[in-house]
């Protein structure tokens, strides 16, 4: 058995009440290298863009038999992953800690504290940060007016124009799709729309350092290091840079809006060559969400991904309703995991010739990740009964097992592969360098000037 004494735990934060020792996860699994985490640095070291807050959630994963109560599920946003050092340290226990952290983060960021939109939906959209000609972005939280063609929606309605999670501006050409993969079409023939939003610490870091423009990035002589989440003492800590990537579907026939996190938004498609702009107001349902948090002990960030439970089957089902799969449809008519035929014109909906995507989940996860998802998903879903959040499931959390590795700058990610069926639809699988791995892909991220950009592609969108 591998007990705590033989493994590395970087930071120990003593919680006075109950005299329980909490350990933040550090260079997981390395031996003989007890070190002081940056989470133990004095408060003055915290960058001004993410000041110390007093309400970090330091709730530990419940002991077996694990019971996630409604109070635990709603206990707030963790500043960093909490891990009980009295447990064995292995891939099972650590995956469970990261997945528990992911669920807490998902709930904290998705439940409104004051009856308004959930936290992450109020963050700043990438399109209001990376403005034409590198214009100075507005202060965080500023509602950006929609395009003139978009009218009639509620005040502050989001403008959803991306039809790939990696593009800001739609394009009708294959070359415009960075992964050359294609859009996702739901059962009603509508394009799935995407948002990329950043929280205030990340937004302010970008603005403060002038990284919102190509010219500003050229002037920036430092190394891009987004703010980190960390526990400082007790429940005091910092919230790091967080990115939310959301996938939304237009709710229509066959969909039950009561089961979705919904938003009324503008589905907007800018004009392109020969195709005029279009904009329509729709009710949309959340079908996929990445929550990516940079923390002091995981400088490669933590990568959580959630989906609506009705999205896709793992195997060919006999029946049922799925957002992106039609049971019983023959392969000739419904080719599995195939991009839609071109041309792709999101102004034309439903997709011509009754096409809809036929997607199944193909990424195989290691046993530890499967066990952890099976442990937490039912518990959180039960604890969230009465909330639409009970209709979502954690697919997995990818995290660095060796954040300070001298040979792998990605920190030896685990699981090796991770994919959300709504966002990495056509790059699912388990083939090295070809299949979706959050950290392996984002490790190559650079800004518009070609300099490394700390695991975020956000900066390359600067104009």
């Amino acid at each position, binding site marked *: 058995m591998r007990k705590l004494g033989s493994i590395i735990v970087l930071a120990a934060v003593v919680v006075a009440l109950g005299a329980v020792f909490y350990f933040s996860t550090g260079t997981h*699994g390395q031996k003989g290298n007890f070190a002081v985490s940056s989470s133990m640095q004095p408060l003055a070291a915290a960058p001004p863009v993410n000041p110390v807050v007093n309400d970090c959630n330091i709730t530990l994963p419940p002991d077996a038999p694990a019971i996630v109560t409604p109070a635990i599920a709603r206990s707030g946003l963790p500043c960093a992953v909490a891990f009980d050092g009295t447990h064995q340290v292995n891939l099972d226990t*650590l995956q469970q800690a990261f997945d528990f952290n992911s669920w807490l983060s998902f709930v904290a960021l998705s439940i409104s504290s004051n009856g308004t939109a959930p936290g992450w939906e109020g963050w700043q959209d990438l399109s209001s940060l990376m403005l034409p000609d590198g214009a100075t972005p507005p202060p965080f939280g500023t509602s950006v007016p929609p395009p003139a063609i978009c009218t009639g929606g509620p005040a502050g309605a989001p403008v959803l124009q991306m039809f790939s999670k990696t593009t800001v501006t739609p394009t009708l050409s294959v070359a415009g799709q960075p992964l050359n993969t294609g859009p996702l079409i739901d059962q009603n023939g509508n394009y799935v729309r995407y948002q990329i939003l950043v929280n205030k610490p990340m937004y302010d870091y970008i603005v403060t350092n002038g990284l919102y423009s190509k010219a500003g990035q050229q002037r920036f002589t430092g190394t891009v290091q987004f703010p980190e989440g960390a526990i400082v003492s007790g429940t005091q800590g910092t919230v790091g840079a967080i990115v939310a990537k959301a996938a939304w579907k237009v709710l229509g026939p066959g969909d039950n809006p009561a089961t979705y996190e919904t938003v009324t938004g503008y589905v907007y498609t800018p004009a392109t060559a020969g195709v005029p702009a279009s904009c329509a107001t729709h009710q949309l349902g959340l079908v996929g969400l990445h929550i990516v948090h940079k923390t002091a002990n995981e400088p490669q960030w933590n990568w959580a991904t959630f989906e609506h439970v009705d999205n896709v089957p793992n195997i060919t089902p006999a029946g049922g309703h799925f957002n992106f799969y039609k049971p019983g449809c023959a392969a000739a008519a419904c080719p599995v995991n195939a991009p839609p035929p071109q041309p792709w014109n999101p102004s034309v909906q439903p997709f011509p010739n009754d096409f809809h995507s036929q997607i199944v989940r193909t990424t195989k996860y290691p046993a530890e990740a499967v066990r952890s998802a099976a442990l937490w998903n039912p518990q959180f879903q039960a604890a969230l009964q009465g909330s639409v959040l009970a209709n979502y499931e954690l697919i997995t959390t990818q995290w660095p*097992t060796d954040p300070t590795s*001298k*040979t792998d700058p*990605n920190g030896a990610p685990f699981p*090796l592969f991770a994919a959300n069926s709504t966002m990495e639809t056509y790059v699912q699988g388990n083939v*090295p*360098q070809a299949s979706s791995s959050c950290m392996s892909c984002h*490790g190559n991220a650079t800004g518009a000037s070609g300099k490394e950009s700390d695991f975020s592609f956000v900066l390359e969108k600067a104009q």
Partner: protein
Amino acid sequence: MSNSSTPDPLDQFVALSAILTGIAADKLHPQLDTHGTAAAYLAYATQQGGSAFTGLLALYAQNSTQPPDTIAKLILQQSGQATANIAQAVTLMWYLGAWYPPAGLAAYQADQSVPAPFVVISSDAYTQGWAWRVGQAHPMGYSDLRFGYWNGPPQALADLVGGS
């Protein structure tokens, strides 16, 4: 290592493999083994190597307290050609991510004009072959390193394979 009185077959396999390959055991099988290579290779060799492989493990278990060089000589030079060939197959598996059937290795030793047959175990095994790291390189078509890494010196061998 296992605290049980019965040796953990995986620990035994890793310890034997460290002797055969010269690569540190905690590199072959890190505490947090994200690829699960050691377990996968143990299962693969058990299936493909049959009694020759289990015999090799038993031979190691009987002599595990001996110095590594003594164990290596015992396996490769003093226990017969069949034992040497299965040990070579295990070594090649770690280095090349491929399985060379011991019979093919024996045939190759008799007639080196015909290459020994092999099968690449998996795409993951290909990228995890230790030949790349011993050469301070990376597999063709796969690298975790950052753009422009070729502008600097290779990673230190000790960092890649362990030891000093």
